[in-house]
């Protein structure tokens, strides 16, 4: 007879932590603003904006939420079926090599940026080194076949754009993984709930063959469901902000400031962060600027967007400490900017 749970951790504290109260306040404020905006939008003066925002918001959610659910499911399966010994053998004993491997994992596990956060959460829980996880987090949504295909189509099969995008995505992700790995590790970089090793403290016995398959599948689904509730709210807040930006920002605002390559790159980077487009669709938006923006600026849009946008930054809060998120944002922005300036200097025309 099967008995669960096998392990019962201490019950949750009665007194709320200050971080929980702050999160409660922010979430409550967001809900209030959104509901007020919704009812304000019913008036004729705001009707068009509300209509456009609603379409953009729902469209982003209907596209992104399924990816996040599939990512959560993958994360749950990783949690239950991947043995810690295996992770230890592949990743933890080869710290530098694992970063280079992680940069190319997207080729075998093509995940978009909405799905990758739940997967990385579980990989970290399994003991994947911090630097390798960061590398996979940044490279996974770029270095994969689906993104390569969409970029090729958007740029009419001019393969230079594809190779440069994937190559820069890989190189930047590996560099940032190695760089941040010098300063952060699991102990000082992850949220306390993820630091516990070698697996979560849920009471299930994971990564072993001792339990029947159906029971293990059930545990995987329970973990995946928990991830949906943990990460989903960040996705929805981010998607709402993205939809608001998409509904209010005029593309021509960016165009009027394109004369300096530096400014053009910075502006396209800003647009990548604000628009929160899926990495499979962003190439089509970037391609609409062909002939109007330098190639390096379009590349900045396509490389930065899958690594860093508003919804991703919010989702990072479900994995990393604030100091890691700030360092990650600073490092990614600086590295992408420098890489794109280099690209513009050495290869101004990619076609």
């Amino acid at each position, binding site marked *: 007879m099967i008995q669960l749970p096998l392990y019962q951790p201490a019950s949750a504290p009665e007194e709320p932590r200050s971080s929980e109260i702050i999160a*409660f306040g922010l*979430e409550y404020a967001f809900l209030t603003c959104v509901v007020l905006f919704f009812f304000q939008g019913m008036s004729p003066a705001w009707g068009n904006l509300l*209509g*456009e925002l609603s379409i953009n918001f729902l*469209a982003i959610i209907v*596209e992104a939420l399924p990816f996040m659910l599939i990512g959560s499911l993958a994360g749950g399966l990783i949690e239950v079926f991947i043995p810690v010994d295996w992770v230890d053998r592949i990743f933890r004993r080869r710290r530098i090599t694992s970063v280079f491997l992680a940069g190319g994992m997207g080729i075998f596990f093509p995940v978009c940026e909405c799905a990758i956060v739940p997967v990385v959460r579980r990989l970290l829980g399994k003991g994947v080194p911090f630097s390798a996880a960061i590398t996979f987090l940044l490279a996974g949504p770029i270095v994969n076949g689906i993104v390569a295909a969409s970029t090729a189509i958007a740029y009419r099969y001019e393969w230079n754009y594809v190779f440069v995008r994937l190559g820069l995505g890989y190189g930047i992700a590996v560099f940032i993984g190695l760089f941040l790995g010098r300063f952060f590790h699991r102990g000082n970089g992850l949220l306390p709930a993820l630091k516990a090793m070698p697996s979560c403290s849920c009471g299930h016995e994971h990564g072993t063959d001792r339990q029947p398959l159906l029971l293990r599948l059930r545990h995987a689904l329970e973990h995946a469901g928990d991830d949906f509730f943990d990460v989903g709210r960040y996705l*929805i807040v981010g998607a709402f902000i993205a939809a608001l930006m998409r509904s209010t920002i005029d593309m021509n605002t960016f*165009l009027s400031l394109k004369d300096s390559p530096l400014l053009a790159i910075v502006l396209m980077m800003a647009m990548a962060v604000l628009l929160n487009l899926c990495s499979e669709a962003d190439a089509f938006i970037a391609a609409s600027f062909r002939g109007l923006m330098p190639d390096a600026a379009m590349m900045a849009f396509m490389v930065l967007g899958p690594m860093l946008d508003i919804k991703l930054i919010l989702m990072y809060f479900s994995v990393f400490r604030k100091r890691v998120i700030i360092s990650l944002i600073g490092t990614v922005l600086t590295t992408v900017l420098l890489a794109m300036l280099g690209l513009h200097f050495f290869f101004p025309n990619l076609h």
Partner: protein
Amino acid sequence: MRALQIMKIGILAAWAGFFGWLISLGQQQLGRLLHPSLWWLVGAATVVLLLFLAVNLRRQLPLADQGNGWLKWPSLLILLVPLLFFVTAQSGRFDAATLTKRAIQTTSGFVSQPVNTKAEGDDNGYPPPLPPRKADTDIPLTKLAMNPETYEGQEVEILCKTFVDERLPDDLFMCYRYLITCCAADALPVFIFVKYPEAKEIKNDQWIRAKGPFSRIENAKITVPSIQTEEVKYVDEPPFPYLF
């Protein structure tokens, strides 16, 4: 604590029901949000949500959720916000104001948007936005924009939304539709110029049908597709207003 668990089950049920409805009975609404080639995602999400729902129905509240349950309520309610906005998404439309924001304009005028080569097939097996008509005249805007040389001089018929711009000559107006690659958030306008003697009388943001010989206008190295017509008919919005 029981209320929190019931709330979670309710959220999973609401999303599973919403996605299930979109993929079955609500396809017309889904067509306004997501490219048909990605509809499988909604089906997959429905299955995943039903699995989550099944395990949550038989599950005790996780320890992490015990303790101060009232703190969790806003985070759970946030998960329902998109369903609230679906109410207004149904009546919302991308209009001329959206066009001016999304189409890139230069001093020479609007720049034609690049068109996804996948769009040549246009519908990927999905019911086309236009009802079947004469094959040689009823041409989607995507094809006209992509292969203008193929249709040069031919008579074509278009179905699109009007955009009247004061900067255009008195006998010219624009007609546009949105092309989506993945979802409506990435929609880009595809447009054609219509040369029509009474262009100034055209109402803005109306669906029209127009038929006439196709040609290209060259201006400041930009090629813009155009037709010349003597008659413009106002029509109802098609069931699937986007180009895929």
